[in-house]
């Protein structure tokens, strides 16, 4: 346990020692800020037809940002250790492979949550500065954040697995991006295909519509289970990937 905490702390610290993390965070906040100002301008025109939180979490800008930022957060995790050779000192310390994988995942997730934290300010602004209308419901808000974390977990674990595949950060990022795009677009299949299987498939996989559900305040156990089990599967695959370290 203490080894896990030591590793987790190191992973999180490493984010703050690299310029990429700051760039990612600034980029994310700029995009979220722009979405928020859009949201405010919609609200200013009177009662909106859509849920407020849907605007924040369901925006196409938000999704494009996520798809680009997640690979940037995860590409370094194992690739850099493999490139520099520190994987050898890391894996020969008296810690289990699973602890290393979990610590790296926890580090990435912590940074991801940290990245989201400033957006709580938007909620604060909505509550205290919109005098003449009802404040947003806490339900959709909590749902939106829960969705962001669940989806983030799954995508981060995909990124973690991809970075265990190669010693090249760029390749790791590209594979992660490709996998995420495929998953995401499969979720949008029902926009282009009318077949029943396509509808079912996209209902199960669509992070986009899951996020709309979450930010409407609806908690469906199916997507929650999908993201949790998906994350667990990816982490397990990463551990197995490390155990088969016949790489040179």
């Amino acid at each position: 346990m203490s080894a896990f905490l030591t590793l987790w702390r190191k992973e999180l610290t490493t984010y703050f020692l690299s310029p990429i993390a700051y760039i990612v965070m600034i980029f994310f906040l700029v995009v979220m800020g722009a979405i928020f100002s859009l949201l405010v301008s919609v609200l200013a025109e009177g009662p909106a037809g859509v849920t407020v939180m849907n605007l924040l979490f369901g925006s196409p800008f938000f999704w494009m940002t996520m798809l680009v930022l997640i690979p940037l957060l995860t590409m370094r995790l194992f690739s850099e250790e493999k490139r520099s050779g520190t994987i050898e000192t890391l894996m020969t310390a008296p810690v289990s492979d699973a602890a290393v994988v979990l610590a790296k995942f926890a580090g990435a997730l912590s940074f991801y949550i940290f990245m989201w934290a400033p957006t709580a300010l938007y909620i604060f602004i909505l509550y205290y500065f919109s005098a003449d209308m009802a404040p947003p419901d806490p339900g959709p808000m909590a749902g939106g954040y829960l969705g962001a974390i669940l989806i983030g977990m799954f995508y981060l674990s995909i990124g973690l697995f991809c970075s265990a595949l190669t010693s090249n950060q760029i390749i790791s990022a590209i594979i992660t991006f490709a996998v995420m795009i495929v998953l995401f677009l499969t979720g949008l299949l029902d926009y282009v295909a009318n077949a029943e299987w396509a509808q079912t498939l996209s209902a199960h996989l669509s992070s986009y519509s899951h996020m709309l559900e979450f930010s409407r305040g609806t908690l469906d156990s199916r997507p929650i289970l999908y993201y949790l089990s998906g994350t667990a599967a990816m982490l397990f695959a990463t551990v197995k990937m490390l155990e088969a370290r016949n790489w040179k």
Partner: protein
Amino acid sequence: MIEVAHLTKRYPGRVAVDDISFRVNAGEIVGFLGPNGAGKSTTMRILAGYLPATGGIARIAGFDVATESNEARRRIGYLPENCPLYGEMRVDEYLRFRARLKGVPHSKLKARIGEVKERCGINDVGNRIIAHLSKGYRQRVGLAESLVHEPELLILDEPTIGLDPNQIRLVRSLITSLADKHTILLSTHILSEVEMTCRRVLIIDKGRIIASDTPDRLRRRMEGEATITAEVRGPQADVLNALRALPGVSEVLAEGADAWTRFTLRANREQDVRAALFETIATNGWVLRELHQEAATLEDIFVSLTQADKPGVRS
């Protein structure tokens, strides 16, 4: 401290380590010597618990590196080839991270880090970012890291590679000074390094151990035949015949076209032919300018063991 029995590592289409067995006792400094690609690093990685072996058993202090890996790892300080470090961290930060990871208790953390920094001479760079350090300093940071949890065994893979001569000397004397508390297994392809630091040598080639002995004894084994060099002024053909006639001499080569000829003799080392050689030359009225017998170097042993296909000196 180390027991290795029938250890084998196969990669697809290639055998990196081929059924090797050896022991290293507590307190020994053992040099792992072999040409590049002989299987040194692979063996060390298996011992350190990084790679799984295809077959055979390796034990560190009685713990199997495959099944009781964490117990074995706790007792090993491993410095991989090229000394990988986290470049973005500061030296102190890195040592603290590694010490915690290796289970050094919180109360001892400061004292341990202070001690290894003192020992490795990196007190003055504690606050520097590792990426900005010179190769020599980095190597010492790596050594300090491998020592920080007071391991019984140090496994050092090419600890002096890529250093300049001064740095090499520093790292070597550091390693020698560590011998009182630790058992050390170090690999190198530099022969003089083994002669200087190790009490025992394991020569490995193509994944097999082809010799295991002290540097001195290995040298003596080679010394069945000695090489003697003599420079003589006299009629070349006559001198050549006279030298060939000496008892114990098996082969004579002559080179040199001017008045002085340089003769290289292969002779039995047991009966020292130098005295007889001098007498022959003196009685014939020729002149002798130089006479010396070469001691076989570890280099000769190494070359003869790893290049020829002859069985070599197995132990």
